[in-house]
Each structure stands twice: as C-alpha cells, then as structure tokens.
C-alpha cells in the first residue's frame, strides 16, 4: 500500500567486504546544524573507517546525536557535505540513509513492543505485498550468526530483556545490508554483563568490515571500546585520538588526555572529573547509627502496570542518614517499588512504616508532609509541568499553602522570592525564575526537582535514576547533594541502573530481579562483583 519503491536490496549479502578495512566508508565535511538559540554542530569534519569502532565522546548537548542524526537522515544539515563510498550524497530521509548502507540504533528503542521480532525486522522491508516470512527467518539466522548471538524470531519484542532488544535493533540496522552502523549511547540501559556482550558483538562486526560509530558520554567506555575517539564540545570537534594514540598509553593517561580535550585547561575541574570517572571499588559503609530504622518495608507487594512486573514480598529497612541503593536491570520493579513507597501505587500486601508507624494507607501529600520525598526519573512527565515557570514548579507540591497562597490567592512575590533563593542554592542555570521549565536542559530540570524535594525539610528521599542522561558536571553536583543530605541525617534510596554510581554512593545495595529482592550487599571491596552476580543470577 505504501511501498512504492521497487528497488529492493538483495537479502543475502553484506556489502562491506568488497572494500579494504581502513577505507573511509563515510566522510562528513564541514557539517553545520543550528537549532533556535544553539549551534548543535559547528563545521564538523569526521571520517568513519571500515573495520573500526569510532567513538564520539562528549557531554550531553555537545552535538553527538545531532551529528549522527544528520548522517542517518533524521535531520538535514544547514551546511556541509556528506560523502559515502567516495560519492557525495544528499541524505534527506532515514530511507535514503538505509539505501546508502547506513543503519542506526537509536538510544530509545525503535522496536514496536507489540510486534514479534520477525515482524519488527520485516517492517519496511519492501519486496511486494506479501510478507516474505521465510526469507526473513533465513536473514535473521544469518545476521545472528554475524553477531554471535541467538535470537528467537517469534518472541514478542516487548517481552525480551533490554540487552536482547538491543541485539534485535542491531540486526534491524544491518537488515538491508548496511556497512555503516551508528550506535547512540548503546550502553545506557545495559548491565555490566550486557556491556561485555555488546563489546563482543562489536568485535564481530569489525571483523566483517563494518564501520561503527559509537556515541557515548562515558570516558572509560570510549577508551575501552573505541579504535578511534573524537571529542565534541559545544557543537565543535575539539580533538581526535587515532589507534596509535590509544594503543600506546595507559588507561589513566588516556583519560587525562581526553579530559583535557573535553574541558580545556580548567585544572581543578579536570581533576574532579577524572576522579568521578575513576573505577570505584566501594567504601566502608558508614555504619554505627544504631538507631531505630526510619523507613521500613515489611513483606511489601504491589501490582505492576499492564505488561510490567510488580513487586513481590519485599522487606527492607533504612536507617537515618543511610544511603541504600537499588540495583537491577531496568524494568524489574524499580519504578513500582518507588511508587509504592511514595504513595503513588497501592500495596496488595505488606506494610510500609515510617518511624515505626504504618503509612501504608496515607496518600502522597500526607507522606510528603512527613518528609518522605520521591525524585522521579520522568522529569518532564510526572516530575515537572514543562509549560509552567520554574518558580511555580518549585512550589508545585505546596499549592494552596501559605506563604505561597493565602485564602486561595497566589502570592506571586513570595513564590518568586523563594524560587530565587532555591535557584541560587541549587545552582539551577535558568534565564530567570519565570522561564518555562521545558526550555531548560535535562540537568537543570533535575536540579529544579531536587530543589523542590529537598527544600522543605526532607527526612527520607527516593531518587529514581538521579543522574540518568546528565553531563559529568551535573552528575557530580547531584551525587554531592545526595551525600550532603545523608550527612545531615536524611536517608536516601537511590534507584539506578548505573552500578558504578551505586557503588560510589551507597552504604548498602539491594538487588531487584523480576520484582523480587535478590539480595542485599554491604558496601566494601568487591561489592560491584557481588551485585553483578546477583543481577544475573536470577535475571534469566
């Protein structure tokens, strides 16, 4: 019905091996792309070579994704040329990119969860009206072999683990014989084991002569995965390290070099960032607070949303000032747990106690009054109202209360004074307190939420993926804030898929697997290892 293009690619061959490894598969020359108010790419020139993993490294907003979206046809550049296989081309749509052999795996899944793996792969495959199911099965088996993985063609995609879904995404990107593969932040949702598996897959692709572009904001990942690393900063290419640069140096030297390229010569910050990126091996748990637990979960169960796991029989207790981590692959009940504690999800069994008293039946606002706060990871969804001002978002949970409202009338001046103070204290970078929240960057929206939740005497705070998608400086600020609060006796539950973050922050780490508690590990040497084991041990 919509398939008008008759030129279908042969389904059996990969085009890559016709050329030598080391050839440029893609040349980007002087690419410039501006959005209102910001130049996302400023005259960037870059080559993707065959048989090489080329890491694009930079902070959030540095322009990595924009550059790759230009190459994959999702965006059109304002200026610059693209050369593919030695020929200058115009890429005006994702379809054109695919025809040129450029496949992209996006940061957010492009698979349709209600379709099977095979149906997802056949989407847009063309070749007449009837679906070629048999041909697709053969192609999938072939590509799975290239990747060195096994994939069930008839599984409904939404039921697969995230690592498997990503493998399907890679297969999909290569489906029509692509010789260039772009991966946008591919490790952000994976377990450490999943990352290792991905590294293996990339090795296989390199051997088959593909050119791989790997977008990341993690220094050590770029250093480990990349044959070549290009560093972007504020839309400009500020440095490139070739295979020779990478080979000759130790891990620490490399990171120092990359940090220098990323942040210039701001020495102090360099040191701070380098410290942040160091592999943490756990610290002594800050114990000795032999007081009564502040927050207790006693055999708590709650139902999940349709298609999601709920939580089953979870018992935890949190001491005052303690930081408890919740580790696990995304979608194993983390959100349900946070909502059950915060009062947004009814319990089906068990009890939540705060200072020894049950709060199971209290609503969100009553729990909020007690000092129980929830910093959601859905920053622009349930976290803030994007179309409202920073000031209003800062008092969003105090609507109707003095001094911000008196007899139902908004006290603008009082709200703005408080907002200005909070913006200052939490270092929110905003043009003013009347700016709409949606216009801020992700990191600043996170700071707005932190300011709101931490401002009015918190006792225990649940942080859901507090640093997800933020740049290194903001990550550092957020973690410092969590620690600082703990020093003051505010307990924290930190939910994160970033194991290093948990090891760095937490006194104890609980592992969730399919909605159940797989175990709790005390901080100390080897903690990452043990948590990783618990994560895979029961995560099928």
């Amino acid at each position, binding site marked *: *019905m*919509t398939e008008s293009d008759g030129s279908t690619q042969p389904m059996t061959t990969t085009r890559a091996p016709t050329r030598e490894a080391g050839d440029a598969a893609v040349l980007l020359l002087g690419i410039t792309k501006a959005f209102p108010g910001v130049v996302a790419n400023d005259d960037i020139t870059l080559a993707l070579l065959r048989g090489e993993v080329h890491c694009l490294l930079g902070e959030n907003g540095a322009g990595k994704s924009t550059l790759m979206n230009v190459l994959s046809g*999702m965006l059109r550049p304002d200026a610059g040329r693209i050369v593919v296989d030695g020929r200058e081309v115009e890429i005006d749509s*994702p*379809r054109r990119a695919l025809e040129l052999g450029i496949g992209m795996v996006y940061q957010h899944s*492009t*698979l349709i969860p209600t*379709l099977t793996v095979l149906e997802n792969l056949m989407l847009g495959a063309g070749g007449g009206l*009837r679906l070629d199911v048999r041909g697709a099965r053969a192609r999938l088996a072939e590509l799975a072999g290239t990747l060195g993985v096994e994939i069930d063609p008839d599984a409904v995609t939404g039921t697969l683990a995230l690592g498997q879904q990503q493998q399907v995404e890679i297969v999909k990107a290569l489906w029509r014989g692509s010789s260039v593969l772009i991966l946008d932040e591919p490790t952000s949702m994976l377990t450490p084991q999943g990352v290792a598996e991905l590294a293996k897959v990339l090795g296989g692709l390199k051997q088959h002569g593909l050119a791989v572009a790997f977008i990341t904001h993690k220094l050590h990942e770029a250093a480990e995965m990349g044959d070549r690393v290009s560093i972007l900063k504020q839309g400009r290419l500020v440095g490139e390290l070739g295979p020779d640069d990478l080979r000759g140096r130790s891990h620490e030297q490399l990171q120092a070099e990359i940090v220098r390229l990323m942040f210039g010569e701001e020495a102090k910050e360099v040191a701070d960032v380098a410290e942040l990126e160091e592999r943490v091996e756990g610290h002594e748990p800050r114990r000795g607070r032999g007081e009564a637990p502040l927050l207790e979960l006693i055999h708590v169960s709650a139902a999940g949303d349709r298609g999601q796991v709920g939580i089953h029989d979870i018992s935890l207790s949190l001491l005052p000032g303690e930081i408890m981590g919740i580790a696990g692959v995304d979608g194993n009940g983390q959100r349900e747990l946070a909502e059950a504690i915060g009062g947004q999800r009814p319990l089906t069994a068990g009890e939540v106690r705060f200072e020894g008293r049950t709060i199971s039946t209290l609503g969100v606002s009553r729990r909020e009054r007690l000092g129980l706060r929830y910093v959601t990871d859905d920053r622009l969804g349930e976290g803030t109202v994007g179309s409202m001002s920073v000031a209003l978002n800062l008092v969003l949970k105090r609507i109707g209360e003095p001094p911000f409202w008196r007899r139902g009338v908004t006290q603008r001046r009082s709200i703005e004074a408080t907002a200005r103070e909070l913006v200052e204290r939490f270092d929110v970078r905003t043009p003013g307190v009347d700016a709409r929240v949606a216009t801020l960057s992700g990191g600043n929206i996170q700071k707005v939420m932190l300011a709101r939740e931490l401002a009015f005497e918190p006792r225990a705070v649940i942080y859901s993926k507090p640093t997800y998608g933020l740049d290194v400086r903001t990550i550092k600020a957020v973690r410092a804030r969590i620690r600082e609060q703990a020093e003051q006796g505010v307990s924290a539950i930190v939910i994160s898929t970033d194991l290093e973050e948990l090891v760095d922050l937490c006194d104890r780490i609980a592992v969730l697997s399919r909605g159940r508690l797989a175990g709790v590990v005390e901080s100390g040497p080897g903690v990452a290892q043990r948590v990783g084991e618990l994560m895979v041990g029961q995560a099928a």
Partner: protein
Amino acid sequence: MSKVLTETFLTALVAGGLLAGVPLLLAALGESISERAGVLNIGLEGMMLLGGYVGFSGALYSGFTWVGFAAGIGAGMFVAVFMAVLCVRLGLDQIVVGIALTLAAEGLTSLLHGAILTERPRLGAVELVTIPGLSGIPVLGRSVFSQHLVVYLTLGLVIFTWWLFRSTNAGLNLRAAGDKPSALDAAGVSVVATRTWAVLATGALGGLGGAYLAIVGAGTFEPFMTNGAGFIAIVIAMLARARPFWVVVGALLIGMSLQLQTALQVASIDVPIDVVNMLPFLAVIVVLLLFGRRAYLPAALGLPYVRGSR
C-alpha cells in the same frame, strides 16, 4: 416467547440486521484501518452522510445502482482528503477536524437536499442476488442468502482486510504507524503516506456504507439519515480492537438491535417505539461497560506524527 420467535420474526430480524448492519460493518471496517494506522477518524459520520447523498443522487440521475455506489465511494474519499491533509499532513487535532467535517457534511447535505431534491424522489427496489440452494434454508435462506451484491462484496472485503493486516507489508506498516510511527519512519517508510492511504480507505468504505444505507436501505435520502451510525461504527471498531471478524460480530449485533422494531412490527407485537429506538445505544453502553476496559487502542492513536519529536 413462542409468539415472538416465529420464523417470520426471525427472518425479519436477521434480514433487517443485515440491512442495518452492512453500513455499520463497512464503516467500522474502514475505521479499523485508520485506527490501526493511528488516526481516530471522527469524521466517519460525515463521510457516510456525504456518501449517502452523493450515492443516492448518482443512482437517481444515472439510473444505475452501481454508479451510485461508485459516487458514494468517491464522496467518502473526498471528505477523507480533508482529514488526510489537515490531520495527517499538517498534524492538526484529529478530534476537532473530525467533528468539523461531520458538521460540515451534515450542513452541506441538508442544504443540497433542500435546494435540489424538492419532490422527495425514491429509487425502485434494488436487484438482489439469491444464492441457489442456500436460499432454501429456513430463516437464514431468505435473510442471509438473498442480498444485494454489495453485501457479498462486503464480506469479501472483511476477509481481504483480515489478510491485509495479517500477512502483508502494508498491514505491518499500518500497525507500526499506529503503535510507534517513529519506528516506521526509521524503517524508511513514510508515516504520512501510510496514514493517508489508511484515511482514504476509511473514506471509501464509509462512503460506500452511506451509499448502501441510502440506495439499498432506505431507497431515498433524508438529511441526518445516518443518525449516529458513523459514531456507532467507531465504537464497534474500538471494541473489536480493529480485528475484522469481531467487527462483523459487533456490526451485526448492533444492526439487529436497530432493526428490532421493524421485526416486532412484522410479527405484530406492540412495543413503544421510543423504547425500541433506544436499544442500539443501550447495547453500546452495556457493551462498553462490560468490555470497554479491554478495548485495545494503538499507542499512537489520535496523535499526529511529527518527525524528531517523541
């Protein structure tokens, strides 16, 4: 009860159910297609109404029923073009545009009807196709197997649509456009084109349904004669989760409840007409109460697709 369940009554009920059910079936089948593709086509009522008016006029002036049906299809697609351009291409709100189109079609047909058709003409009885052998079966014989050719064509369309959804590229594209249009776009298939075809198909089927209602069902055209059939068809498509065979079941059940009054009259049973007229709507409400929560709606239903935004 024995007095109610006579052969005459049942024949009248089934035949009437088909007569009233076929326009619903056509429209709901069309709605399933655009619903699968993520377009909530509230303009369906308007497509049916204009299809009915133009179809009736076509049949009346040409003297050929088939010209009327073709004209009805064309008229439905004409309304669908507005829907496609405004909602699919320009990304305007589907509900607002749909309501506007329905209101516009209601106004337009009433105006034309009043201005042109001054003497309330009627079409003669249409030619029915009686299937030899099968038409001898009691009750079903004279109701199901003695129908206008369009009825058999409709059943063929149901099977075709089922096959389209299940085992074709186009069907897969439709489902993707409704569940996750960005994925379809990334796969190199135009979301706008896919949805435009879907909306046009809906217009064609809705227009045909309207034409059937006017030409075969009533033999004439009256302003507002669809009487909410387009909206009921939307409900049927939603409850059937856009699965063609369930659309058939829903359309026939509602069609029968619409025709209960005629059947009761045929069987000379006296029930207040207002009570009977409420039945189809009561049926919809009951069904919604029972199954509404399970109604499957594509994730991107009603949302315009703009590349680059999520």
